[in-house]
């Protein structure tokens, strides 16, 4: 039996945890990225694309983007929920945000796996 509570104190818990989990991953990735970027011998195309051609770095970068888009979905959705009251407008903004972020995920995958 599915026990789903449509209201109550714990309804947003999954999003709350996801927002923080993605934040922690992005923070760690940011430090890794900063160290790797600083270690580059020069800011040339060869050095820059070489960094992203590395399999592990590409994998972590893609996870960073997925985390970013999920994190942005929760954050931007919260902004619409706080300031936009008419249901129709809010729904439209939610959908536009969602479509944009899913599209960005495809774009990010294409940028990384072209290398």
């Amino acid at each position: 039996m599915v026990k789903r509570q449509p209201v109550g104190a714990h309804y947003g818990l999954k999003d709350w945890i996801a927002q923080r989990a993605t934040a922690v991953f992005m923070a760690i990735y940011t430090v890794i990225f900063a160290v790797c970027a600083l270690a580059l011998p020069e800011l040339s195309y060869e050095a820059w694309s070489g960094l992203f051609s590395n399999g592990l770095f590409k994998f972590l970068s893609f996870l960073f983007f997925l985390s970013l888009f999920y994190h942005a979905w929760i954050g931007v959705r919260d902004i619409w929920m706080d300031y936009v009251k008419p249901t129709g407008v809010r729904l439209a903004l939610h959908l536009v945000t969602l479509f944009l972020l899913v599209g960005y995920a495809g774009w990010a995958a294409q940028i990384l796996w072209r290398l």
Partner: protein
Amino acid sequence: MSEVTVRKPRPKHLALNQIRLPLPGIVSILHRVSGAGLFLLLPFLLYLLDRSLGSAQTFETFSAVVGNPLVKLLLLGLLWAYLHHFCAGIRFLLLDMHKGTELAAARKSSQIVLAVSIALTLIIGVKLW
């Protein structure tokens, strides 16, 4: 007792220009503003990453675009937004774990967030400019 009581007009703290937000409140609203700004400019940032990783030719396009002083200024703003969101986010994670929730500690940590994010923006900004 009279049915009619004279009510003083209740204060409504909705005049944004009159609200004196405490420092943790400023950090909090800047967290939201910086997040919104980063979201709005995501397509531009993805475009820059795309150009920078496409080929040696598109890397030239990337260099030309980010070489524009106005774009540099915009990117400096986004760099601050990212760093503020990063520092304030770590502060919020610590608050979630009930660390630094007392008034004095919360004020101190919001000062640190503002100072560190601006300092890092200047250091990285000067290095990249």
